[in-house]
């Protein structure tokens, strides 16, 4: 990645403060602008969801989009800022899902402590796995995480206490929230949590260190950043949020079957794909990608229903190749560079006018 639009745009938003800091010795602003934008964005998304209350089809599309926007934001912490291509997030998604489903089915827990358990377990699991996995760099890390998710899928379909291949079914009368519209707002809340955590991380020391380790591990260590510690922390935070998402998704579906949670392509690769298409290493990018991609996929499946199965997924694969080749900054990166180009052109014509 050549550019990091979020950190740069952050910086541009604070340009006036910086100038005064340079000349008067004041500090930076504490990023009120980003939090304001965050608040406005969430209110707008909530408003759109409210407008769709009478359109159950679009509302459920939107709910899934919000879920994936949140998952992509969570993945982006380690994958986008940290540059670690994790294909293991399906595992953390499943850990969250199983935590809710197993405690509810076997021990009659309410789902809420199950959610908390899912967050804790996926965070701990990620921290433990970080030690062997981050001995691997670049593509080896990706392979290690891919292998992990395949093995976990094999294990849960083999073990009887996880419900094996059949998975788990939560009885309807034990599902606390069955109203579909409510779920759009719950997933919006989940998105707000993921984005808020991303904001805190990306603006603080950890975010800077993640970017430094991504771009140049040796230079980062010379500057005092422990690559292993930084990646472990990013991985664990990202995994914890993903675990929360898995728990919520089980509550939403009312059942858990292993491939829905652990498929290496449909979950493991799809989440990074959302982040990529929206714009890696930015706050807004994964939100856009998460909202757009699942919706597009559902649309294509409908539109190509008379074509053989696989066509829409093949198109998705082609899109992925093309984005990697020609559109690396993603939708958000493209938009911001467009705005910047227009601004600089305007600035130039202003200069000419002044002359």
């Amino acid at each position, binding site marked *: 990645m050549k550019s990091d639009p979020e950190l740069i745009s952050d910086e541009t938003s604070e340009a006036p403060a910086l100038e005064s800091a340079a000349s008067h010795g004041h500090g930076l602003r504490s990023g009120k602008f980003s939090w304001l934008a965050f608040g406005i964005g969430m209110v707008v998304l909530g408003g759109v969801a409210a407008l769709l209350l009478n359109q159950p089809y679009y509302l459920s599309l939107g709910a899934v989009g919000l879920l994936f926007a949140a998952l992509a934001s969570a993945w982006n912490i380690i994958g986008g800022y940290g540059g670690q291509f994790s294909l293991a997030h399906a595992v953390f998604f499943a850990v969250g899902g199983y935590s809710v489903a197993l405690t509810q089915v076997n021990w009659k827990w309410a789902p809420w402590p199950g959610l908390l358990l899912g967050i804790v377990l996926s965070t701990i699991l990620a921290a433990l796995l970080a030690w062997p996995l981050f001995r691997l*760099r670049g593509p080896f890390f990706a392979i290690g995480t891919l292998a992990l998710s395949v*093995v976990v899928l094999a294990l849960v379909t083999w073990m009887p206490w996880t419900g094996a291949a059949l998975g788990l079914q939560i009885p309807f009368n034990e599902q606390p929230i069955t109203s579909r519209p409510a779920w759009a707002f719950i997933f919006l809340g989940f998105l707000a949590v993921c984005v808020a955590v991303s904001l805190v991380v990306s603006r603080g020391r950890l975010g800077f260190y993640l970017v430094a380790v991504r771009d140049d591990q040796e230079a980062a260590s010379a500057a005092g950043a422990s690559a292993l510690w930084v990646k472990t922390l990013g991985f664990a935070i990202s995994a914890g949020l993903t675990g929360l998402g898995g728990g919520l998704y089980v509550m939403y579906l009312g059942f858990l079957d292993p491939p829905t949670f652990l498929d290496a392509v449909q979950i493991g690769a799809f989440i990074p794909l959302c982040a990529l298409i929206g714009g890696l290493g930015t706050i807004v990018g994964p939100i856009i990608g998460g909202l757009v991609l699942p919706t597009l996929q559902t649309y294509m499946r409908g539109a190509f229903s008379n074509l*053989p*199965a696989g066509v829409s997924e093949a198109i998705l694969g082609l899109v992925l190749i093309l984005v*990697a080749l020609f559109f690396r900054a993603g939708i958000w990166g493209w938009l911001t560079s467009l705005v910047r180009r227009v601004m600089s052109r305007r600035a130039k014509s202003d200069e000419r006018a002044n002359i």
Partner: protein
Amino acid sequence: MGVLTIIISGVLVGGMYALIAIGLNAVFGVVRVVNFAHGELVVLGMYTAYFAWTVWSVDPYITAVLIALPLGFLVGLVIQRFVVQRLLDEPLMQMFATFGLLMLLQNLFLAFTRGEPKAVRVAASSASLDFFGVSVSVSRLVVLGAAIVVTIILVVFLRQTLYGAAVRAVSQDRGTAALMGINVKVLYMVAFGVSGAIALMAGALMSPIYTASPALGFSFVLPAFAVVVLGGLGSIGGSLIGGLIVGVVEALSGYFLDPALKQAVWFTLFLAVLVIRPAGLFGRAGSEEIGQR
């Protein structure tokens, strides 16, 4: 069933993993790019053999040499020229792109075959030899033989020829090699071509054994990665031995534990090797730290 039978069947499966992994390693070790779609190329070889067999009644073993090798070389060349070459300095994007290629090919197979399994059944499919009282499948023996032959050819080629010296120079330091007058671009295209050729040939040779289906490629590529990591990055001989190890471990764990656990067992082995010796059993130390700069 004695342990000898299990070990022999493990060695035979290992020969197949080795053959797939050697093709993967040709790219991994030279271009230093992870090709997630490598398993799909193997499946493409299987479909090629199926097509030649049903349409022209060509024996899959003839297809392997006369059709799969040149076609595979061409496919590899195209992947390198139009996808990977543009992403040499973008390790993250390389992974996205080859993963996209995996999705594209897998789903094109699904769309074209409508998910119907395609099986090539020739005399070799059911033929077997008696080997110390153990019956050995001829078609699997051919795959193992091909893995050994390809290993010998590549090792001799890399050691003895100027091209081999160039490959070693490029895999160590692309920039310096380019300054020394090596045409890195051509060399990478050849490496991808060789990788594709071996993959499609492997697929054609495996077509009498396995029934081709779209999802098969994905199930090949992970053991192949494990083999490459076990054997060592860029070590062709290591891939052969690594393949046999993974095959035998898989067979033994399938017999003594549970067939469903065999993947978990080799994954544990794979992680253990990575933690203890990240460069693999036969790789040069430090070679695992690639791709991030």
